[in-house]
């Protein structure tokens, strides 16, 4: 029953192995991003002559920055580009006659790719960064487990969102521009570029109203210092957004499927 889905995951993983060299360089790029941001905020703390900015110390900030890059580089795949490609080239017709749920197929293919990125590209960068900077260790095993759970939900949220974007791209003729815009928005408001607690308070207020924080800020708040009650409420909120985006992606998918049938494939 699940065997065929597992093979899709495996294929996504195997396709990536073919481009090993690319990922070594991707790994260095990830490390560079971690370094630039960590150095900049170190300089800010030094120049500001304080140990605490907006209630957080330097070590917490650096931990947030490095883990944010780790999560972002795993999440940030080109699901919508793959989807756009399949629709444009007509490959989707072949996928549709397979006895497989198509959105699930795309999702698993993407997951396989992400796992590979995590292993080959992100982990080495993370390990080196750990040697270069002080990083706060998690408070307990429970915190690690909850953070992982939160990252899985984040992956689900981002993938559903990307899937919807990919389908919108089908009508917009070209997915490139809209995909770039999506990345810019997530990069800015998720905590990947600037830890959300470091935004000026009056801007924070607005950013916290948006759903983009769920993919990076929420897992990291859980990692840093949340107590059990807070963790549960954060996970609940994430679940809410995951379900919302999932329904959105299903609706747009159903709409697209009907459209394709009308065109006659």
């Amino acid at each position, binding site marked *: 029953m699940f065997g065929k889905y597992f093979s899709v995951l495996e294929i996504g993983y195997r396709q990536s192995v073919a481009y090993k*060299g*690319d990922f070594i*360089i991707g790994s*260095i*790029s990830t490390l*560079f*991003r971690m*370094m*630039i941001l960590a*150095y*900049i*905020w*170190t*300089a*800010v703390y030094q*120049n*500001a002559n*304080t140990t605490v*900015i907006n209630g957080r110390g330097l070590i917490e900030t650096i931990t947030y920055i490095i883990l944010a890059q780790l999560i972002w580089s795993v999440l940030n795949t080109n699901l919508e580009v793959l989807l756009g490609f399949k629709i444009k080239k007509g490959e989707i017709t072949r996928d549709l006659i397979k006895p497989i749920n198509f959105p699930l197929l795309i999702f698993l293919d993407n997951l396989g790719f992400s796992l590979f990125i995590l292993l080959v590209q992100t982990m080495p960068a993370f390990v080196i960064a750990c040697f270069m900077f002080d990083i706060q260790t998690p408070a307990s095993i429970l915190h690690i487990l909850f953070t992982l759970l939160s990252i899985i939900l984040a992956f689900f949220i981002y993938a559903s969102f990307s899937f919807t974007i990919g389908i919108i791209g089908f009508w917009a003729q070209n997915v490139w*521009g809209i995909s*770039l*815009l999506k990345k*810019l928005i997530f*990069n*800015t408001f998720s905590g990947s*570029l*600037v830890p959300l607690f*470091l*935004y*000026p308070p009056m801007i924070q207020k607005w950013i916290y109203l948006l759903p983009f924080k769920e993919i990076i800020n929420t897992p990291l708040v859980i990692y840093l210092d949340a107590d059990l009650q807070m963790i549960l409420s954060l996970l609940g909120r994430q679940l809410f957004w995951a379900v919302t985006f999932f329904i959105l992606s299903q609706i747009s998918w159903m709409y697209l499927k009907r459209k394709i049938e009308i065109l006659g494939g």
Partner: protein
Amino acid sequence: MYYISLYYTAFKYNLKSLYEYRFDFWVGIITLMIMQGIGLMFLWVIYQYTTALSGWSLNEVVFIYGFQQVVHSLYITFFGNVTGLEQLIKHGTFDCYLVRPAFPLFQLMITKLNITGFAGLIVSIILLVYSVYRIGLQLNLAKFVALMVFLTTGVLIYFSLSLIVSTCAFWLTRTMRLQQLIFDFSEFTRYPIDIFHSGLQLVLTVVIPFALASYYPALFFVKEAAFLEISLKILGGTLLFYVISYRFWRFGLKYYHSTGT
């Protein structure tokens, strides 16, 4: 004279082909404006908590940032095509360049004007002018000439580094990723390099000298560092890297045997 007229003709047709894709051009402009806007916002957020980073104020850092962006866009617009060498070799198109009566490198440069580069150039020039205005920099004739010279040497640095990597395509099949890796270093030089580890500063000055293309010019204009010392560093470094890259290119060219496809 021959090369000037060639360049003029190529430039004219390149502009015409840009016009064909004007929708893409505007999408490019808007996207780049948003990206630059986010870059500026990032700097603004940082300076909410401090008035100076290693002695550099917000507007001064915007100058470094703008200078780097102008140099980078100039490079992408006019020389960005150099990175396409691997494709030319793979498809055998490079042979056409060798039989035409002009330097292959020159032909490589004039083949295409890059749209995003051109769009980025407009946006980044606005950024640089704005920062010059905000700092209150008095640009007399001498300083203006220096600005132009340092922009030129900056572009040459980018071009030389890119040429070195591209030339590797004579031996390696793929250089695109290596190109990206080298250019990832340039991201460090959008900020004053004093904030980085001293080893990294050395790398950015001597090994992959992107700092010569943005940070050191900013030292001269903003911090009024000694002109002679700075310009010797920049001009010497640029010349050295240009000569190395060109020699390497000639060497690669000699090595090149067509695949025959």
